[in-house]
């Protein structure tokens, strides 16, 4: 018998021993970061960067495959007991000796996860991880000249690049409201002192929002540079237009952070993505009835919110709990009770 066959038999036997649980349920008690476990990480330190940003040092589990500079990772954090998933750029270099990785998080107003990570996260906490992803990365062959154009927390993926790969000629234009809002300011200035970086800080509280036409003055040879830009939509839209108008759109690489904003309202267009049906729903009809009305086979039970027989993934949009008025927005892993939920804006139900 081959060793794989042996191992799978041994695993089968273990499963019989632990039934109805899985062996991993017991192994997780002892070693949640072991190879073969669901991918998790442990927060080992939280370093403040600015008044509202902090770097989180994470030791990923043994299954971590590593990342490419500029990529982001989705992390699942329990905030007030509820697991929430968010994506953050990795700010650590890819060759960090101790195997840790870092993300740098800026607390956004009313941001549940960002505020939790910046202000309340404690070393020792386990978080859930996905493998790193994203194509906002550096090319294999080094470009001669590089421009990094960033604003606010848009600096985070670029910092991952700066720390990972040295170029002969790098210029950075970074926007932040005030000097003390510039994340990684000291490190950036050290790079400047070592002549590894030319930096222009735009302080929007005093200078106003960066007018993209000013690039000619700030970085005269910008059109010759391979450019990576990350920041708010306004800046990126302006950059895209600017680069296109000058006939060099292929030099511009951008990363858009903010996911599409969920529009909440009273009722909306409901899509049942598995069956491909779309119908208009008002804000008072349970989605179970909406689905059945559209001829979708919906799981159902008591129809009064007590039996949990109708729970179904909410893929996109928002719904309102008809009993409490509470709004639930789509996030990975969010399941809703269709019998007591109504559309609160356009939404997508997996059925």
């Amino acid at each position, binding site marked *: 018998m081959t060793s794989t066959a042996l191992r799978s038999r041994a695993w089968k*036997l273990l499963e*019989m*021993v632990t*039934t*109805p*649980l899985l062996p991993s*349920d*017991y192994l997780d*008690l002892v070693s949640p970061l072991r190879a073969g476990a669901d991918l998790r990480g442990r927060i080992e330190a939280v370093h403040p960067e600015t008044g509202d940003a902090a770097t989180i040092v994470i030791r990923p589990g043994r299954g971590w495959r590593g990342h490419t500079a500029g990529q982001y990772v989705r992390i699942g954090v*329990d905030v*007030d*007991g*509820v*697991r*929430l998933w968010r994506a953050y750029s990795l700010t650590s270099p890819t060759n960090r000796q101790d195997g840790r990785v870092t993300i740098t998080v800026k607390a956004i107003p009313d941001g549940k996860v960002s505020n939790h990570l910046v202000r309340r996260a404690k070393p020792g906490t386990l978080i859930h991880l996905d493998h790193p992803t994203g194509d906002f990365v550096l090319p294999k062959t080094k470009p001669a000249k590089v421009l990094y154009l960033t604003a606010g927390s848009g600096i985070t993926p670029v910092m991952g690049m700066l720390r990972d790969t040295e170029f002969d000629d790098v210029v950075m234009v970074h926007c932040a409201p005030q000097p003390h809002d510039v994340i990684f300011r000291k490190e950036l200035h050290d790079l400047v002192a070592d002549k590894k970086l030319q930096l222009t800080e735009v302080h929007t509280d005093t200078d106003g929002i960066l007018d993209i036409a000013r690039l000619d003055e700030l970085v005269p040879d910008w059109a010759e540079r391979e450019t990576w830009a990350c920041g708010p939509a306004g800046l990126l839209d302006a950059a895209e237009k600017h680069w296109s108008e000058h006939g060099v759109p292929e030099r511009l690489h951008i990363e858009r952070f903010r996911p599409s904003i969920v529009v909440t309202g009273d009722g909306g267009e409901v899509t049942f993505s598995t069956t491909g049906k779309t119908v208009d729903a008002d804000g008072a009809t349970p989605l179970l009835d909406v689905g059945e009305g559209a001829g979708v086979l919906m799981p159902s*039970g*008591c129809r*009064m*919110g*007590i*039996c*949990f*027989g109708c*729970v179904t993934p909410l893929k996109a949009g928002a719904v309102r709990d008809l*009993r*409490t008025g509470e709004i639930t927005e789509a*996030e990975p*892993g*969010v*399941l809703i*009770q269709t019998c007591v939920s109504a559309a609160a804006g356009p939404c997508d139900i997996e059925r």
Partner: protein
Amino acid sequence: MTAIDPTAHLTAEQIEELGRELDAIRDEVIADRGEKDAAYIRKVISAQRTLELVSRGVLLFSIFPPAWVLGTAGLSVAKIMDNMEIGHNILHGQWDWMRDPKIHSTTWEWDHVSPADQWKHSHNELHHTYTNVIGKDNDLGYGIMRVDEDQKWHPFHLGQPLWNFLNACFFEYGIAAYDLELGKNLNKRRRKNPEFRARAKAVGRKIRKQVLKDYVIHPLLSGPSFLPTLAATFTANLVRNVWSHSVIMCGHFPEGVQVFERRSIKGETRGQWYLRQMMGSANISGSKAMHFMTGNLSHQIEHHLFPDLPSNRYAEVAVKVRALFEKYELDYVTGPLPKQVFSAWHRVVRLSLPNKPSKPNEKPTVPALEREPELVAV
């Protein structure tokens, strides 16, 4: 049987007001639900797993009597925790709000021969929606017993103290049979129904896995302790079965609990639904440990009012609920475990005989319904 409707003094407006007050209690808990509650269920789950692991480990040496006793006791408690505080409550969706796919009503499987999804249908959907409605709620005597005067007597019921005893010993199989509605489905025509066959197959698979684990694999792993380990697991299952049967009997069978006729729930309002849950359930009083070991089903009344609130909150909710019972002059049925178990058994024994002829001025509020006895368990 109740000669007088104990809710007759309430006006329709009062009943709706009661409903609003209960909704407010529920909303308060939901608004406050958070990190502490999540930490609680995680702690209970890891404690259960650790206890089970250690007990199974000790049982490897169960050829030595002290190891047998210790391992059997530990495994019994672990199995009770798995079924009651953890399994029952997770399968009610009490912890779905955490969005942890591992502690979720759609993914949880328990150490029990009834597959979780089948139990969820018969328990969450049928029993909790139609609590104590004769002919709709099979929990009323599990379809094999007569537990209210308004249920029709049949000579079959003479044996119900014995059925109940056997059901207690093999409760998990009783539940599996109950979830399959075996009594109804074993006739020739229904037996062939593909949907029933698929469900029966799933139960068969689950039983096979459970039996293989408890009565073959673990004893074999124990080597020379094969027989003691086998006996230990059997004992642990028996203890768990008798315990959960007793607790569950106390939920709806003790004296003072009301039953309802089928037509009384037509067009039931939210307030009326709440009132039915209040009058159809009974609590068990006792220590914190007692509440924990019953999976907080000792707070059966609160559980029936709010089946999806986290179980660790029932104790605090009970104070407010009890105050409402007093405010609306309703009878909050509760008592210590021995008293409630005795009361429930007394009812089972008493109703194994036909009703005593009633006095002329005493008329049942609920007319007797024609109903065939069903054998679903054992």
